[in-house]
């Protein structure tokens, strides 16, 4: 039984990891914490859903199309909210992403109402796998695999490609990056596109697992924040591992203590991490220079 909870936790945690990855990509290169991640990914999920249901497109066309559209939304968001606010104080940046969140929330409600929607069933082929007492539903399993592949691709992109190198340079020091001839604005747009695409993928997977709703899905996405903090805000591997740890603990608490404990466990973990080790497991400890 415990094993089953842990397995569920790993699969849900992979979702959190994917959402966390979306947060970390932006934080790493722009030092902005994107609070709008929840609504952005909900929007991505809804776009994919509309393409699937309204336009009756097959998944292999709808998904890339939806990711492309959400990439454009990401670029637009960066252009409208953060470009005019470059190098502003922290509060301004946080408020900018919160206002963006509010706008997107309004747009989502206007476009897709407040009802809950489910993806068409049987979208992903496969069957639940039974291993003795444990069963592995195929949909979360595919979601888990997708998350891992996505993580590998993003990691490869950051470590091995020229654009990734530019992003890492920008993250290290914006002035140096500019002096080296990197177009920082360009890098910022690219990070937002990448991040929102990753987030939207998480939105689609999450929607496929539990359905989409204008306020519930962003609330679920918020549970990825503890994973990010636990893993360390500037560590990609940390985001994924932290997400999985939070997912496992959440499912264990929900299974052992009672289902309503699952809602709040991530936030207790968050508080605990902030009290004990604010920089997280793999994050860099911030040393203040005068």
């Amino acid at each position: 039984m415990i094993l089953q909870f842990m397995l569920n936790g790993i699969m849900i945690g992979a979702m959190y990891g994917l959402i966390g990855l979306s947060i970390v990509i932006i934080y790493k290169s722009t030092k902005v914490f994107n609070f709008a991640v929840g609504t952005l990914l909900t929007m991505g999920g809804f776009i994919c859903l509309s393409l699937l249901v309204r336009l009756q497109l097959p998944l292999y066309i709808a998904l890339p199309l939806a990711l492309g559209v959400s990439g454009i939304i990401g670029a637009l968001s960066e252009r409208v909210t953060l470009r005019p606010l470059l190098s502003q104080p922290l509060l301004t940046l946080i408020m900018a992403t919160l206002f963006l969140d509010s706008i997107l929330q309004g747009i989502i409600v206007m476009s897709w109402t407040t009802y809950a929607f489910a993806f068409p069933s049987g979208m992903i082929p496969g069957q639940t796998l039974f291993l003795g007492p444990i069963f592995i539903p195929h949909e979360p399993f595919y979601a888990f695999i997708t998350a891992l592949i996505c993580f590998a691709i993003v990691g490869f992109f950051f470590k091995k490609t020229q654009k990734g190198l530019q992003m890492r340079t920008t993250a290290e020091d914006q002035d140096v990056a500019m002096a080296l001839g990197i177009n920082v604005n360009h890098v910022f747009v690219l990070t937002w596109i990448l991040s929102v695409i990753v987030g939207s993928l998480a939105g689609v997977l999450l929607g496929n697992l539990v359905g989409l709703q204008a306020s519930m899905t962003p609330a679920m996405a918020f549970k990825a924040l503890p994973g990010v903090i636990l893993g360390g805000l500037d560590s990609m591997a940390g985001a994924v591992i932290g997400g999985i740890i939070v997912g496992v603990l959440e499912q264990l608490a929900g299974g052992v203590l009672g289902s309503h404990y699952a809602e709040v466990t991530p936030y207790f973990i968050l508080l605990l991490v902030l009290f004990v080790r604010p920089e997280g497991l793999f994050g860099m400890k911030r040393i203040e220079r005068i």
Partner: protein
Amino acid sequence: MWRPSGIMDMNYKEDEAIVRTRLQKGLLIASLVAVYLLPLWVGGRLLNFINLITITAISVQGVNILTGLTGQITLGQTAFMAVGAYCVALTTVYWHLSFWLALPLAMFITGLVGLLFGIPSLRIKGFYLAMATLAAQFIIPWFIINIRPDLTFGYDTLPVPSPLIGGFALKSQTSLFYLCMTLGIFGTFFARNLQRSRFGRAFVAVRDNDLAAEIMGIGIFRYKLLAFFICSLYAGLAGGLYAVWMRGVSPDHFTLSESIWLLGMLIVGGLGHPAGVWFGVIFIRTLDLSVRYLGPYVQPFFDADVGTAVAKGMGPAVFGIIGLVFLIFEPRGLYRIWERFKAFYRIWPFSY
């Protein structure tokens, strides 16, 4: 206001006074009288709305002290309001405590809860601290819903009795108006004076550069915690008033988005100015109300369900757009516009 030239301060007391000229004093008294006579002219739903504005303003005064003066970001103000509201509700319903005792008690308890979530500010700041208050926003309603649902009625509304003054129940909006407005005015004056006191200056020093403040001998942690405490006192006061204004409390009223709205009102009004708080609250609440009135006119253009959703979604969208516009074009908010206007009419028509 109105001190172009020729009016000199003769001693420090005059220099420090808030109300400095006879005209100001007259205007202040006149406007206070006007405010208190307001229920004679307006009533019903408008008065209800004014009460909402006053309660919100009290809460935002707290956010202003924590975020505007001390520079600590809080995303959990409505959760603290929930603590205050439920304290008042539970103590008056189950202990049959008088509202006038329950309210200070609720403020104090909320203050302590605020302290608890302020403790991480010792080591962290910025995004991380926002995270701690965000955790409060999820943990506190969870406690309210799940720990003793037999007492708090879980997701449902717990009815709250109206406060009594010598057998007379403050039930009508008019009587609540006097209660809320009096506390609101006191709260604003307290905030204004706090800003000028030793504590207020220490808060500003911590905000501007905490390292420098520490070197100058300001105990950062003490002042941060104090700011959290005072902010939560305001939240508790606003929450308690909210409970009697709504005549009941329910966890639905205290959501994360409401907290974000409070912060947004502060930004729109002008960070760090008690008067700006009122501008921001009045502006955003009026905007929200007008968008809501606009809803039924927009609705017929769409299908049934979509129309309702469009009407519902307009509020957050307009709020977000207005907030962004202010952040980008007038980051110091309506208060700055007010100051510019004052400077303009003071020197008009010779603007140099």
